[in-house]
């Protein structure tokens, strides 16, 4: 744990839990060469994903928001990763890294790849340090099992997954006995509540969004952090200005264009994760702060680009399929084993 930036008596309204590799950082670890290069990179050589640092800063600035990082990177990388976050101007409250070396020394080879036995108890443990009504917003990616673990976490807290099902899941996931015991103990310890508000899955591998349909509409597959900011704005978590700041950062630092942002907005609308009201609210904010945006592009161009993509769509929005009644975690675990 490191760099707590808020007073200890603050009443946290939301916890934002972030994975790091492929969610916040552009990381390659598909080959041994990639792994080696990632391990040897200095903080200033690591690259954050477009808009992620800006979004983290805006989240922090928007209220009593707790930022917690749970990464699968080894603990030996703590110094360089913390340096990177500081370079990006990001503040955090918790920063957990995986004890890979210790697992290796103890011959716990399954633990090197297994994320259920690592992340699920950490997420539950995090709930012991926040008020029972503190909402959760979770950020992960499509490279590993984030969608699965985050959804399971949310349904455990909400009481939609019972202890016997959890036991079966932990057995099927082949977690170690101590992880199993710790997880089951934490489930009994944490206050229940339907508190997971959103799960964002960054489609780093460009997985088809339909792959995440079984997790329901709480989970939003996103292609970039402008989309995440938009959904958080639509959810009433971020003000419109924060969305525009994320967008401006993506344009000035990462080569995004007005067209690519407009298309991202339209993609969210088409998939039903944003409403027309969000677009008009955003357009109002652009006009309100027009002088700020004129440095980059006349405000009317921005409003026109967003409005054009809205008007290009059908007048009657398609009726979205209803959320699945319950998530079959055991079946989904089989799918995960097949695809990862």
């Amino acid at each position, binding site marked *: 744990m490191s760099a707590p930036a808020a007073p200890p008596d603050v009443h946290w309204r939301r916890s934002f839990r972030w994975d790091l590799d492929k969610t916040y950082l552009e990381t390659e670890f598909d080959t041994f060469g990639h792994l080696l290069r990632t391990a040897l990179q200095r903080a200033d050589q690591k690259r954050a994903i477009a808009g992620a640092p800006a979004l983290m800063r805006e989240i922090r600035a928007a209220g009593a928001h707790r930022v917690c990082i749970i990464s699968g990177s080894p603990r030996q990388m703590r110094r360089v990763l913390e340096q990177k976050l500081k370079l990006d101007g990001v503040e955090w409250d918790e920063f957990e890294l995986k004890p890979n070396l210790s697992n290796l020394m103890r011959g716990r080879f399954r633990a090197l790849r297994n994320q259920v036995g690592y992340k699920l108890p950490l997420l539950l443990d995090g709930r012991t340090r926040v008020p029972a009504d503190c909402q959760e917003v979770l950020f992960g990616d499509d490279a590993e099992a984030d969608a699965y673990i985050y959804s399971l976490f949310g349904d455990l807290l909400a009481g939609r997954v019972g202890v016997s099902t959890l036991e079966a899941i932990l057995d099927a996931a082949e977690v170690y006995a101590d992880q199993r015991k710790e997880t089951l103990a934490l489930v009994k310890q944490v206050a229940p509540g339907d508190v997971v508000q959103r799960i964002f899955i960054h489609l780093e591998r460009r997985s088809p969004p*339909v792959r995440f349909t079984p997790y329901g509409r709480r989970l939003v597959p996103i*292609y970039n952090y402008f989309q995440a900011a938009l959904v958080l704005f639509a959810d009433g978590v971020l003000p419109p200005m924060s969305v525009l700041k994320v967008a401006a*950062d993506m344009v000035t630092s990462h080569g995004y264009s007005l067209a690519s942002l407009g298309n991202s907005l339209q993609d969210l609308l088409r998939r039903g994760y944003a409403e027309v009201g969000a677009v008009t609210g955003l357009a109002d904010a652009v006009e309100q702060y027009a002088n700020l945006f004129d*440095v980059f592009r006349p405000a009317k161009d921005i409003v026109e680009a967003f409005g054009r993509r809205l008007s*290009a769509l059908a007048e009657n929005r*398609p009726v979205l399929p209803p959320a699945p009644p319950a998530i079959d975690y055991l079946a989904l675990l089989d799918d995960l084993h097949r695809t990862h």
Partner: protein
Amino acid sequence: MRLATPLQIAAGPAWYKKPVPVTVAVDAMGGEQAPDEIVRGVADLSLTAEGLSLVLVGDERQITDGLGRLPHNPERIEVRHAGTLPRTSVFAAVDLLAEGRADAVVSAGVIADGLAACREKLELIPGVKSPALAAVYPTALRRGRNEDPFSLLLDVGATLDPGAEELCAFAALGSAYARAISRNPRPTVALLSIDEDPARGLPAIVEAHARLRAMPGIEFKGNLEAVDIPQGSADVIVSGGFVGNVVVTLLDGVAELVVDLARYAQKQRLLWRVGTTMLTGGLAQLKHLTDWEQYGGAPLLGYRKLFLRAHPRSGAQAIENACRVAAKAVSADIPATFAELWQSRPALDKTA
């Protein structure tokens, strides 16, 4: 927010400094495999095509469902709802061209609809009286720096009975297109006729021959007969739309007959089957070289904006390649090349 430095502001906003991407509108509802294969082609292309902006025009629901099942990059794809009918979607796509919101259209739909949309909404290039629909035909000869194994045949149905000046314009348009796409600096041009003798044939062909002969920008080879087309005797073959359409239809029919005969041989005798099986590798390579899916599509030339007709049976690969060809043609600025070639026309009039 990270503000621009005074130097950056003086140099102009970052947004304006970026190269403007080519925008290709794709008719999602046209073609025998629409919309699934069309959407798949655009989705695949979006993952790799830097500097290319794609607009899928058609039924929003079907497009969104299709994209949702595929890896794609939505940052490069805009969707424009235009209902479920192919005719509606191609008109909407051409609308985008006319409004300057797209640089090219790719459609695998019925060409009559595409032609009607272009005639209604687009402006012809100065000097062009009527458009020419091109077709690419596989030949034995490779051409240009790209070593394309195709000839360009135009017109194949847009202007049924063109005059001599229109035929000369087709020659200049075809030459400009071949320069851009095959990277062939001086494509050879020929007129399709009944004889190599320049004095024989329809009056318009005879007159066009004389004019083209004296046109310095055109590498004119003279007349050729239909039998010369598969030999690859010229890079660009010019004809009237009626004749051109009969020729390409016949060539397609012959190609299908050859395939049918090979299948027949496979079934009839063991020895024939062995022979055709031994040829399989070579035939597959030949198919790859001459596969229309590799070429993508053929243009409707003569308008200021580009309309590319993809094969009605186009699958994802063909659509992807058609979009790439369209982007390349847009970047090459065919109207400007045509204008350059067309400037030599006054000198021609003296000899005509």
